[in-house]
């Protein structure tokens, strides 16, 4: 706990890829027994989760499982009923979302939510709102990651394709120099080829030193990118572990990879053999 950085001012993201305190230091993000609800609906019923610096963590689950609720609680858009959210070992629940941006949290919300009437460039500048002026190096980095955005930098964001809008949403979040990037279903509604492209870029972003917490229904893609994964089911974590293990778990394959018939048959066959 002694090495934990101060929350007050942290303009710079963490050091290079995969570095940071060893397994004994506090995790970058930690959720402890998180309960969140909407009115009478209890959307999260005690979620414990941690993300270590430099990791990519996937949070999987079907529609309505509570994935977005989890991300919104982390980014301060929702307040938990009980439980704690810790960033660098310090509690951040109750801090509003616009303030959390200053603590190095970037949120790519569900459905992209780019500023449709601003140009690509204006969107990116907006992403750097918390820094008095955008850092040209960040802009270069985003354009290097997404050359398409550079081609279309003067185009109005609302006229971009869905994939380009997703790239813009990610680029915009990167402009705020996040240490931890929260991504809510970046693959939603996109063609498989584009999804692959975007996940490739997410890997690059992670390799450049940004930690990712990735919410997905597209479990294959997410687990191929992630180091670890959690599976959420109606507000409760039902499974967690290294991505590779989850990816080969027959239950996951059956429930989330849409390989029902084959997976089940395979699992049965394996069970029969075993």
């Amino acid at each position, binding site marked *: 706990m002694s090495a934990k950085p101060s929350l007050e001012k942290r303009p710079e993201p963490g050091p290079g890829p995969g570095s940071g305190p060893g397994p004994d230091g506090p995790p970058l993000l930690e959720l402890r027994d998180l309960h969140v609800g909407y009115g009478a609906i209890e959307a999260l019923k005690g979620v414990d989760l941690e993300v270590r610096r430099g990791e990519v963590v996937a949070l999987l689950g079907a529609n309505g499982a509570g994935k977005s609720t989890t991300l919104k609680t982390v*980014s301060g858009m929702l307040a938990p009923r009980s439980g704690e959210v810790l960033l660098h070992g310090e509690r951040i629940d109750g801090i*509003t979302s616009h303030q959390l*941006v200053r603590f190095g949290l970037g949120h790519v919300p569900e459905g992209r939510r780019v500023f449709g009437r*601003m140009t690509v460039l204006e969107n990116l500048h907006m992403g750097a709102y918390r820094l*008095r002026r955008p850092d040209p190096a960040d802009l270069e980095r985003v354009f290097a990651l997404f050359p398409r955005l550079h081609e279309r930098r003067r185009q109005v964001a*609302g006229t971009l394709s869905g994939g380009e809008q997703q790239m813009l949403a990610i680029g915009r979040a990167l402009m705020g120099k996040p240490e931890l990037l929260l991504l809510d279903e970046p693959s939603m509604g996109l063609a498989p080829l584009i999804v692959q*492209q975007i996940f490739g870029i997410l890997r690059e972003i992670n390799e450049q030193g940004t930690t990712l917490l990735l919410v997905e229904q597209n479990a294959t893609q997410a687990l191929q990118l992630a180091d670890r994964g959690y599976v959420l089911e109606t507000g409760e974590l039902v499974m967690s572990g290294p991505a590779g293990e989850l990816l080969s778990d027959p239950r996951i394959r059956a429930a989330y990879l849409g390989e029902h018939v084959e997976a089940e048959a395979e699992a049965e066959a394996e069970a029969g053999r075993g």
Partner: protein
Amino acid sequence: MKATTVSRGKGGGPDMSAAARLRATRWYQQPRWRRLAALLGTALLGAQVTGREGSSSDIFLALKENTTGTGMWIWLGGALLVWVLREFVSEQLAAGWAGVREGARAGASGPLGRGRELWRSLPWVRVAALTALAVFLVLLPLLVTRHWQQVLVDQIGIYVLLVIGLNVVVGWAGMLDLGFIAFFAIGAYSAAYWTGSLPVEPPVVLNNFLVIPVAVVTCLVAGVLLGAPTLRLRGDYLAIVTLGFHEMVYLAARNWRDTTGGTSGASVDRFEIDLGFWSYRWGLDPVPYYWLLLVVIALLIFLFLRLEHSRVGRAWTAIREDEVAAAATGVDTVRFKLLAFAIGASTSGVAGVIYASKLGFINSELFVLLFSILVLSYVIFGGMGSIPGVLLGAAILIWLPEAMRDQVPAQDRFMYLGALLVVMMIYRPQGLLPSRRRRRELEMAEEGAGGADSLGTSEGRRV
């Protein structure tokens, strides 16, 4: 008809005939003469509505006059012209219009584009044009009759102040405020109170100019008190809350007679400067008020334009487009909405002080809901979010009924205004001089661009 439906294949019989029926009833699939008949019918109705009024002594007088007078021929001629244009030359017209727009877009060609080019490239052209405009505006009241001087001050000047205030709230921060005149009333009653003109005595009697900052503070406080609990609401809810606030302020002014004078009102002192060695008193002549308003308006426009292009303006733009995304990029949405609301409120308050001091008299009926709605319609008509637009909108919509004063019956004037607003919203919803961003919105709608994901699959990422 059968041939066309059959070709679509089996089983579609009943569906296709339903579709065919719908297609046949479509307005532009019907014979031309029906559209002509409809237009002529509309023209007859229009001639009756806009023509002479009837009287109880001779109930058919108006009908007779309106079916034999010139008004009807103008209406019928207009209808016929519209019909001919739409039916026979609409394609040529559309092509011509597209050409004009292309020319305007291409920029360099055409007088409009050349003018814009000059404006951009030569600073002295800009300075000269702005100076000429300033000189014109300063001298304007000396060129018109007393009646128009009054219109310039009491209506155009005051409403211009109001629209630039409401533009901050509606045009920039994107909040629908239907109670804007409530703050105007608070400003006006502040002026009356602090100059000792109301039945209740103030602790100290202030000069009207000193009331301006007091009214600004009062309206800021009122705006924050109203805004803080309600600005978390969205769109329609906020509109209802502001509507309710307006009614509360209005009814308080009306019914709290011992304090406000109610409908019978109170007289208010006029502006006065006394510097010891030099003093000046604003009197009945509207022209000095005009110059006073001009100074205040110029100052506020200067301040607001700076705001628009600052971090504050960017935050407002982001909030207007998407509050969640704005918060996710670090914009304190509640604070900036409150700021816009308070700025609008205090601008309205300043207008109220000047209005009360100019009229020398106020009563509760000067602050009815209609005026809140009028201010909003000026903002929308001129082009939300664009200061030149809202200025022009207010000027035109106030000038028009005044100019029609001698041409049409007095009680008909708002009908024409309403018709103009309807036509405007159908054919030019973005307003007269829309801001760049509103124009973009319209262009996007025209091109049918939403968030369709048609791009990207075929072209790979080029690294």
